């Protein structure tokens, strides 16, 4: 039994009862789609449609549709990939790590955060496939499968292969974890369902959940096990993504600081994305009682802390470049800050290092409008961080004759839009048809941490 101090801010406000929880969350699934939702979905689908054209042209004509060149082999493709994977970190961190640390406040945000994680990873997965010259082969040749091609095997030395394993593992564990958490809530919706289709669909989705004590016990156990499995994955995914760069010989990539730096950056951007989405959902669905200002503040603190870690990492990089005495390393960092891409570096520094420091002020970190703006700023900054690492390191490496500039094409933009369309389409479908807050778990904290209970005491 968890004892909460009365001084602690309540996690659920406005005297919500268990029935209210069921009602508030389920009604969104049961009611007819609102025009606002329809509009949002239509915009997402439009984005997806335009993006699909860009993807089609890329697949049909070749990577030449993008702005990449002989010097800059990776640009927006891998920038977007790392960016989306980074965003996909918050969900698992919230659901797994915070579960292990018994952070009850996670209950009202973990569902949406995990959904976001999964969708972000789906978006991220588009790029390793699309960026290949021959994705129709690469999509399966990169897997170590038994074959009759003359027993061709993959190269276990290659960090790209490690990526394949890291991301696919992360994706499958996250998906299972998310789905397991959804089962009790699906059962609730099934029980309330009136239409035959809803009954059948939610019935199937809830996998025969019966709400028995034994079932609940198994549910808790599985959640714990999965949380234990998922926790190292939170660290491993971005660590391995960072190996793509860290194991290379390119100045600006060849850096041992990358794994912790990338993980901190990923949590940083992931939380920012969760905030962006939750602030909107909360407003539109009227979930202010569940996602309170306390939640927002706690997440802002995490953003501030990880933002500071990232800032320290940036400065460490500069220091190490100077301290190493390696001419190329020094030039790479000087070129980042003062070369032709100085504006990207400046954007990154401003968005990622300076802006999160605003959250030292309680007034700002409890201000929803400010938080919303900053959450977007952080993700802009994190996109530029990856752009800076990838493009500005490559564009001027060892041999000056090959130095080049990168300029994106409409198709670079289009493919990026494609993933946005995909992400929001999935997210809006989720928000309509799935319970956006984990009812079962929120109910579990009502007794201990809701405003009603605290008043009663």
């Amino acid at each position: 039994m968890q004892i909460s101090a009365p001084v602690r801010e309540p996690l659920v406000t406005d005297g919500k009862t268990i029935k209210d929880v069921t009602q508030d969350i389920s009604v969104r699934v049961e009611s007819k789609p609102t025009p606002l939702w329809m509009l949002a979905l239509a915009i997402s689908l439009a984005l997806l449609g335009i993006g699909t054209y860009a993807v089609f042209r890329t697949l049909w004509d070749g990577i030449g549709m993008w702005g990449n060149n002989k010097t800059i082999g990776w640009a927006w493709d891998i920038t977007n990939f790392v960016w989306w994977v980074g965003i996909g970190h918050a969900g698992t961190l919230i659901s797994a790590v915070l579960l292990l640390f018994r952070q009850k406040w996670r209950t009202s945000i973990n569902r949406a955060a995990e959904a976001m994680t999964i969708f972000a990873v789906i978006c991220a997965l588009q790029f390793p496939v699309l960026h290949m010259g021959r994705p129709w082969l690469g999509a399966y040749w990169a897997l170590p499968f038994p074959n009759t091609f003359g027993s061709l095997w993959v190269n276990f030395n290659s960090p790209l292969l490690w990526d394949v394993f890291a991301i696919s593992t992360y994706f499958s564990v996250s998906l299972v974890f998310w789905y397991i958490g959804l089962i009790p809530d699906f059962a609730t919706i099934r029980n309330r369902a009136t239409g035959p289709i809803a009954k059948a669909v939610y019935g199937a989705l809830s996998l025969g959940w019966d709400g028995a004590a034994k079932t609940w016990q198994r549910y808790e156990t599985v959640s714990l096990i999965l949380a234990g499995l998922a926790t190292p994955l939170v660290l491993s995914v971005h660590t391995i993504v960072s190996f793509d760069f860290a194991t290379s010989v390119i100045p600006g990539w060849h850096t041992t600081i990358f794994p912790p730096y990338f993980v901190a950056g990923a949590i940083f951007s992931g939380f920012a994305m969760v905030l962006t989405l939750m602030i909107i959902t909360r407003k539109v669905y009227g979930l202010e009682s569940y996602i309170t200002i306390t939640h927002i503040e706690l997440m802002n603190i995490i953003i501030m802390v990880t933002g500071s870690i990232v800032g320290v990492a940036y400065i460490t990089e500069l220091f190490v470049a100077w301290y190493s005495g390696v001419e190329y390393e020094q030039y790479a960092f000087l070129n980042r800050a003062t070369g032709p891409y100085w504006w990207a570096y400046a954007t990154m520094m401003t968005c990622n290092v300076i802006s999160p420091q605003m959250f030292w002020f309680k007034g700002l970190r409890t201000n929803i409008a400010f938080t919303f703006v900053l959450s977007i700023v952080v993700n802009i900054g994190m996109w530029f961080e990856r752009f800076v690492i990838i493009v500005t390191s490559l564009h001027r490496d060892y041999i000056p004759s090959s130095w080049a500039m990168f300029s994106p094409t409409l198709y670079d933009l289009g493919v990026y839009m494609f993933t946005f369309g995909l992400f929001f389409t999935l997210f809006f479908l989720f928000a309509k048809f799935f319970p956006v807050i984990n009812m079962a778990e929120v109910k579990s904290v009502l007794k201990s941490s809701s405003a009603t209970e605290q008043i009663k005491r």
Partner: protein
Amino acid sequence: MKDNQKRYWKGLEQLSNDPEFVKNSEKEFPDYLPINSNSGEGGGPSRRDFLKMMGFGIAAASLAACEAPVRKAIPYLNKPVDVDPSIPNYYASTYASEGNYCSIVVKTREGRPIKIEGNRFSTITEGGTGPQVEASVLSLYDSARLRQPKVKGEDADWASLDREVLNGLRGARNLKIVSNTILSPSTKAVINEFTSRFGGEHIVYDSYSSYALIEAHRENFGQPAVPSYRFNRANVIVSFGADFLGNWLSTVEINKQYSKTRKLGPEKKTMSRHYQFESVLSMTGSNADYRSPIRPSQEGAAIAALYQLVSGGNGGAIAQEIPYLQKAAKDLLANRGQSLVVSGSNDIAVQRIVNAINSTLGNYGTTIDINQPAYYRQGNDRRMAQFVSDVQAGNVGAVVFLDCNPVYDYAGGLALGQALEGNKVKVKISMSDRMDETAALCDYVAPGHHYLESWNDYEPKQNMFSLAQPAIRPIFQTRQVEESLLSWSGAAETNYFNYLQNRWRTDLFGQQQEITDFQQFWDTVLYTGVFVPGRPLNLEPNMDQLENTAQTVDQTGAAPVFTGNTNGDIRQVQQTYKTDPEQVELVIYSKVGIGSGKQANNPWLQEMPDPVTKVTWENYMTISMAMAKEFGLEMNEGKSAMVNLTVGDTTMEVPVVIQPGQANGTVGVSLGYGRWVAGKVADNRGFNAYPFIRIVDGVCQYNVISGVKVENANKAYRIARTQTHETFMGRQTVIQDSTLAEYQENAKAGRFEPVIATADGPKDPETLSLWDGHLYPNHHWGMVIDMNSCTGCSACVVACHIENNVPVVGKDEVLNRREMHWLRIDRYYSSNAEVGDYAGLEEASENPEVTFQPMLCQHCNNAPCETVCPVVATTHSSEGVNQMTYNRCIGTRYCANNCPYKVRRFNWFKYHDNKDFADTNTQMNDDLGKMVLNPDVTVRARGVMEKCSFCVQRIQGGKLQAKREGRRPVDGEIITACASSCPTDAIVFGDMNDNDSRVVKLLKAEANGRAYKVLKEIGTRPNVFYLTKIRNKDSEEEVTA
């Protein structure tokens, strides 16, 4: 049941039960059924056969119903005796175009010429080639070539063309036959027959004329020809605007000679000193030890001053004003008879002074041989100018353009074109092999063969002959120009091959005593491709002997007598040229790749970057850094600007390239671009600079010193360069160079030897590795590139392109930085900034030192690309070659990112059979062009990575040949395309496991000398070594801006 007494029978046979019946009844089937032959032994078809037939029938019927793609592979019905599929044949031949000469070997596969190699039997070109020579094989398969004769723009047959032409010629008064320089004595004989038959005159012009050089030698020495230069004997070379390595007279030959003076090693620690006084930074100027940018108007005065300096005077004010002029004079005087002064000027008075200088220095008879004249340029500007005015006046009745295009490539071409268009000439005949600007204005086009389809002989220098033989049957209904002329002249022998042989039988056969049978003599000469009377007819390419004979050939005669009035010339020159610092001066030059523009429709040459500016696909105006600043012009990456260039009354809007090393107050434009009837590749690329050439007193002047105006057009323009960063940023692991003075003291001068700090103290990067290394039990291929010999000529770039089926991508894709060159030549300028001043290091100095560095896959023994490929598509071979498996590649481009040398190239698009590239990558997009593809090399698919393979197909071919003959491959037998094309022998390729190979010998000699590995400290352990660049500068001299 009891036995039934009743008997039933089937027939009387059973009843009678005769033995025959009994025998038959024991068999299950009657005899006449084909059952007994089931085993198939009986010879007839069996049941199984029936099933087989049925199966085949069904399969065949259903297959026949499928639409099979039409493939145009036609097998030999009767295999030619000497053509074996997949075995190349080599034929010695000769490239001679517009007086540019190269003795070649043509590689053919299944009867198709696919590659040009240098001919090592030639004592002129000695196995070297140049970019235009290499690329000429694609011109054979150019779809812009004419397929049959044309009469008044309509397709016609030869009979009707001949009829009409003869009718026209018979009635014509004042016939002119116009050509570029012709090196072939037999062709000249044919032209003589033709002109004597119709009473005409032969006019010779050159698109880049050396008339003044010829004329000056006529006046001074009574020999109206270009002399034979022997750069290899010169210790001091002084050039005034002559781009002798790039476009002057005989570039392959001169590159070869020049490079011999630039070789260094433990045994030879001296090299020539090269001074260049010029306006535009040329490829030759890039190689100079001392380069002094001068205005064109100063050139004459500078030469005059040099004359005064070498003949004991003080040279006057100009000698003080122009840097290095006095120093050059001092060096020349110290090397009398071992020096050479050349000038690119087309002013006769200036060339006379140059002759006087060389004569004063005693260079005639040693480094210059006028007793053995060369025929590289024979154009007579004055007669050409007269011809144009005759045409304009309507005094010419008939004109035959013999494979030349004066409407485009002559200064007065536009006027000539107007006259032709205005029907000032009654009978207009072009013998061009394609529709060009001149042919388009002619009534009759009698297309000649490509040179690879033709027989011919050549005499590039007096008494040095070579033969050209066809390497393929004529592809189209063309007719060799000589044959056309012979048939029009009504000669007894119209078969040019017979004509040629007859001439050789009577003229040349007797000039040797070794072989008594003419056919044997002919075959021998055909085999080696060259014939020099007095030189043994060897069939073994014995290089030692070749060099010996080269020495004998080098015996120049006694010094000829110089007659001239040099002081008068000096006065004349000083009057002609007045330098006005306010006036912009224009230099018109021609490029190494495109040259006059004759081969402009050749995409390999269009995509070949200019060695100095690195611009592809077009020409531009070069402008000095100071002037650019003055005009507010900037050049950043591909972004440039347009200016309005006015010369006299011609104004053109042209793009700008800011050129370090360009003399202030001057601008430069190159010829060869802006063609309008050339073919889909060349049409409307760049601008036509021929109209800028001034004709003064009938002589073409390539420098315009007055009436030039430049205005900023305030218009942005994108210019496609393969290299946009000019300097090497002081990176000593990339470029290592020194001066000769330092090198003579220390062979390791200029070497940078990085060490890695470890716990055990500083260590050589080669001693540290994470990897176990590779074993090379059999071969270990390696390459040494001498940066001191490399002149940047780019023959290797084009040779690599051809050998390896590298796609051409076109201007837009070069702008996108996606050119596919496996081998590139990096060109770096020096900077005046201090090491550490990164912003300053990006700026080249005003008059930079230039270093060329051929860069290709380094075939690292610890290759960064190999470890990162997720599907092991790039691997290390047991012979040290880093190899690409195209069909395994999935195109992640990780290898390219991780390549420190940035030599990997990605197929961003499908470059073959793609209409988007049909106008640029012609050798992969039309049936004709595809004939040039090397069948030994895959045409890569979209989405895969490619890069230099060390010409693995040549390695395998060589190994196979040796294996068949039961021996080890001999050094020099296996050689990459780049090394084989190099006219300066800067690239040496071979087996590092073979202790006798040239590579090993060179590396042993240079191990404690000039040999270094680029980016050694990363630990990639390349198999490509570079030798430091050494400049012949005095040690006390600092780099001057």
